[in-house]
């Protein structure tokens, strides 16, 4: 057979068709387009700002803010304080809402999620209806519903809804007892912390011991004892140094205690009930993700119901639940910015609202506001990636 030498000659290398060259060209074009777009935007912004006489730079942060913030559980803000101070106050108020909201949403979400899987038909249907209704109605609508409808039909201070003479709910908000530490409270706190550290070491030791000898100790009751007894003892020594100041009706209003303004109550109700519906779905799918064989196998090796729950179900379900749970926490924090709709003084309302109106420095203020949320999101997603890697099932 005659082999045609023409055919097997290697093809001529065409630099314009090589993948590397093309990739460099495409990337340079994209980069060039992107940079020119950014420059165009900056140029426009600069011209517009000079034309409208808007200042730029971050000097305004150190000027007096000239406004009051109505509600400050942590620190005071007066008109002579700076804008930067208002920024910090806004962040603190956002964090406050987020932390309390997450606390209630978690508890409620787990209860509803477990209830959805209950073998009691009524409970399961009830939880199902809760999830579907709350998930399919916009959060802002729910917020308005609580704030403009439900909290508006509350009685005045004189006829407050009363729970145990400590909690009062009326048009002015929710009044709760205020814990006031007295001398010796620090010692109680210290005892508590030491007890917890001790328990952590105890659990570790018990685990090692079980791995070595196979013997178990009733770790739960021992830990509970270590936690409660010394704390009770020290508290007793100092004559229970935590005092609860009860809110008391004086004239037309309540004195003492902590007042949660209606805006905050509505925001907490809306955020935690709404997020709880999503958390419930995550909890449900986490529990359903466990293979039935796991439970059968653990019964077969002789674990009792509580042991199955503690050693088999919860660890595996949590592995599935925690990543979406974190993103729900993040959503709740981001959704807390809806506070601006009912004028709860969170970061967006105080800084991107009032401060922006006064200074007109939109770019700086929005950049600062966005970077707070961005920092939070990125930190949490990095932590989540780390967690997922640590918890991923290791093939053995």
């Amino acid at each position, binding site marked *: 057979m005659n082999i045609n030498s023409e055919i097997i000659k290697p093809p001529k290398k065409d630099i314009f068709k090589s993948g590397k060259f093309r*990739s460099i060209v*495409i*990337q340079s074009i*994209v*980069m060039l387009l*992107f940079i020119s777009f950014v420059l165009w*935007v900056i140029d*426009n*912004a600069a*011209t*517009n*700002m000079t*034309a409208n006489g808007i200042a730029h730079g971050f000097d305004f942060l150190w000027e007096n803010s000239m406004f009051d913030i109505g509600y400050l559980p942590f620190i005071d803000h007066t008109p002579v304080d700076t804008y930067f101070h208002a920024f910090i106050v806004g962040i603190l108020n956002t964090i406050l809402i987020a932390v309390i909201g997450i606390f209630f949403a978690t508890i409620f979400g787990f209860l509803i999620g477990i209830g959805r899987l*209950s*073998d*009691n*038909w*009524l*409970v399961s249907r*009830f939880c199902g209806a809760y999830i*579907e*209704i709350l*998930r*399919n*109605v*916009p*959060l*802002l*609508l*729910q917020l*308005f*519903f609580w704030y*403009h*409808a439900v909290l*508006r039909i509350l009685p005045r201070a004189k006829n407050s809804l009363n729970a145990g003479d400590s909690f009062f709910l009326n048009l002015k908000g929710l009044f709760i007892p205020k814990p006031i530490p007295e001398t010796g409270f620090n010692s109680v706190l210290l005892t508590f912390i030491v007890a917890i550290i001790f328990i952590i070491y105890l659990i570790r030791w018990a685990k090692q011991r079980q791995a070595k000898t196979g013997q178990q100790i009733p770790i739960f009751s021992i830990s509970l004892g270590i936690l409660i007894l010394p704390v009770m003892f020290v508290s007793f020594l100092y004559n229970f140094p935590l005092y609860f100041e009860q809110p008391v009706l004086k004239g037309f209003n309540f004195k003492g205690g902590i007042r949660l303004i209606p805006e905050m109550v509505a925001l907490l109700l809306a955020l935690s009930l709404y997020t709880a519906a999503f958390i419930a779905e995550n909890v449900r799918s986490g529990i359903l993700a466990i293979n039935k064989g796991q439970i059968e196998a653990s019964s077969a090796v002789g674990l009792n119901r509580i042991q199955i729950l503690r050693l088999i179900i919860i660890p595996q379900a949590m592995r599935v639940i925690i990543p979406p749970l974190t993103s729900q926490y993040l959503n709740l924090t*981001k*959704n807390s*910015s*809806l506070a*601006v*709709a009912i004028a709860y003084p969170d970061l*967006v309302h105080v800084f*991107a609202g009032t401060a*922006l109106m006064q200074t007109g420095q*939109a*770019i700086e203020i*929005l950049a600062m*506001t*966005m970077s707070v*949320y*961005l920092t*939070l*999101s*990125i930190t949490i997603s990095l932590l989540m990636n780390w967690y997922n890697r640590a918890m991923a099932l290791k093939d053995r």
Partner: protein
Amino acid sequence: MAQQPTVTLPPGRDNLKKPPVVSIGFLGWIRTNLFSTWYNTLFTLLGVYILYLVFPPLFQWAILDAVWSGEDRTVCEWYDEDKVKYRAGACWLMVKVYFNFFTYGFYPDELQWRINLAFIILAISFSLMFIPNFKKKHYVGIFLFVFYPFIAFFLLSGNESLGLEYVSTHKWGGLFLTFLLGSIGIVFALPLGIILALGRRSKLPVVRLLSVIFIEFWRGIPLITVLFFAAVMFPLFVPQGVEIDNLLRCIVGLTLFGGAYMAEVVRGGLQALPKGQYEAAQAVGLGYWKMMALIIMPQALRIVIPGIVNTFIGLFKDTTLVFIISLMDLLLTVFTTNSNPDWMGFPFEGYIYAALVYFIICFSLSRYSLRVENKLMVAKQG
């Protein structure tokens, strides 16, 4: 106890031992589902008690005592000679009076047929998409995504040369505006999401980096700040003298925000496709764009239909936030009537109506997405 006699069953059904009456039928169902253990009994009793506390008064308020027709608020709330206030149940009359406002906003009454027409065209083309044996779906799809937005725009805002009176976007509002903003989520955000997802999976580092930054930026900030951004920063970013319509600003903001979420959904679909699909497409000599358009995307998008629908539901609910740049969507129309002196003091009725509308839309969409998901699961197993 007496010794159990050994039973030898003669032929014939009559003598067969029946299960006890409490373990079958209705009674059996109640026993296993409501009273299986002592704590389940407790829960059931508690639940029945709560239902008893909540439902009769609610029924009384919402149906029996409710006002369905009348002239003005005096039929819902009135005073006797001693100035004592009386109040009927739910005042659905208020919703009836404002129904037109809740649906069309300030859009002129005599021009509302244009909105209806646009909606009917949309509804017909959408229902064509769901007919199983209809062969020309892609034509309908192209019509919906490419031509329909223009038709709708001309119908809604009007065009003097076509003989349609101009209606400023300030007058757009109500449920109609909510639908409009929601459909932005599909019409603009989905294509943007597809491009971003491709960018994030690209082999070119620059493209990938830019896509990642873009996606993570919009996903990391709350929609409220996006809308603030759209309201106060967009005007600064365009050349002097260019006015951007308030509605357009909002649409751009929603598109960027929704696009970033859609991108992550589409990326999930791209990652779920087996590598062999990519390799096979390359082996038959398809270039990048042909491979994506003909082989990868049709499959990837089909896998993530449930995800797309869920993201859409989220976007649809989020359109309520446009109140921040004072666009009159359904929620804001309800909110405004609350502060209207004629009908002040009936907040529950308005919010319940709005909640019902949102619920019906979002719930049916989520059921649809669930059905598609189950179908896909069956297809995968079978």
